[in-house]
């Protein structure tokens, strides 16, 4: 949407993952391994397209938001598509965000790894 970045901000990616709660610790561990520097988890509930409603296991759904570089987002999205989409109730989407303090969202050793 043709707008400009606020001053002193830098373009990053926000990856949002909505998943079954049993996956929380595994997903956040993997986010870290793939180069994300942090995340925020919120609890919710939802409905989707699946016949299997694993979310009926008590606890509904979790929503994980994580700001990361374009490269890490690429890796995270691929990882989730490969390892989760077939068997788990997981969706993921990426949006553009502008952040201040861009150094917070970059893990130097991991980024090139």
């Amino acid at each position: 949407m043709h707008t400009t970045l606020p001053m002193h901000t830098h373009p990053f990616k926000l990856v949002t993952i909505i998943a079954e709660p049993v996956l929380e610790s595994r997903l956040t561990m993997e986010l870290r391994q793939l180069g994300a520097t942090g995340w925020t988890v919120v609890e919710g509930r939802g409905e989707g397209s699946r016949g299997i409603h694993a979310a009926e296991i008590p606890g509904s759904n979790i929503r994980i938001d994580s700001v990361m570089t374009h490269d890490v987002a690429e890796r995270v999205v691929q990882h989730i598509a490969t390892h989760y989409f077939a068997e788990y109730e997981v969706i993921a989407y990426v949006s553009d965000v502008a952040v201040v303090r861009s150094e917070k969202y970059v893990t130097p050793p991991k980024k090139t790894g």
Partner: protein
Amino acid sequence: MLDTLQANLLSPIPLAFTLGVLTRLMKSEFTLPPDLYATLSIYLLLALGLKGGAELAHATFASIAKPAAVTLLLGCLTPLIAFGILRWLGHFSSADSAGIAAHYGSVSAVTFIAAQQFVQRVGAPMEGFMPTLLTLLESPGIHIALAIGAVQRTRAMRAAGVTTGGSIGKVLHEVLTGRTMVLLVGGLIVGYLMGESGWKAVSPFFDSGFKGALMLFLLEMGIVAGSRLGDLKKVGPFLLAFGILVPLLHGALGVALGQWAGLSVGGCTVLGTMAASASYIAAPPAVRLTLPEANPTFSLTAALAITFPFNILAGIPIYYRFAQALA
């Protein structure tokens, strides 16, 4: 038989459960707040553990040894029986069979408590060490069933060239350190250490309120079970029959082994109920993480919408009658 059944149906626990089911059938959106549900289960499990621990002081090792041994035996046999029936009679996939077997090889603490209340009400109280046996039966069945499933899965995975994520070790650790085990085992130890005087101090909280809190909990269980009734048609007639007949089989096995181990009629009834019951707390996340291709609708519907109500409403009196007949 019929009047035992009827007396049971008119006692607080089955009534509260039925009210919950009806609430759902009337399409009410009423439900207990999630934290209240968690609170009640923490309260019930800890109360069970503490009281069991305080009573453990009176038990001798000799009196527990044999009952404990048959409990562990039940923990090994029941998941195998369930897996075999599902895989070879029911033609379920190996993942689904293992997933469901994990539920039926473990135990439902609330069904245990319902049995305890039942035998108390009919004047045949169980042995004080029964909560200890409950802790023994929680995890072996899950482990065994998941091991079967994991072996098959790894084989299939290797064939397909995929590597898997969920480590079994981590999952077993989660079962062993989950809510039920922490509160039951922890409660038993604390109850044992604090002894009679400690129990007396806290029993106005943990004992007097027990039956009422249980009733509230069963109301929510009824709502949960009721909301799964719609899935009954998805699971098919085989699983429907499985959810009633396997508990009867496991229950009879439990009663018989309890009788052999020298338990009282109340103790046999409760051991039979334990064997007959299916876990819906510890098993589901463990299965979900290690056997994601198992359809959770199958196991949860069978455990919650068929076996749980069956045991609460009819199973327990049946195991009790059977225990009386054997005694």
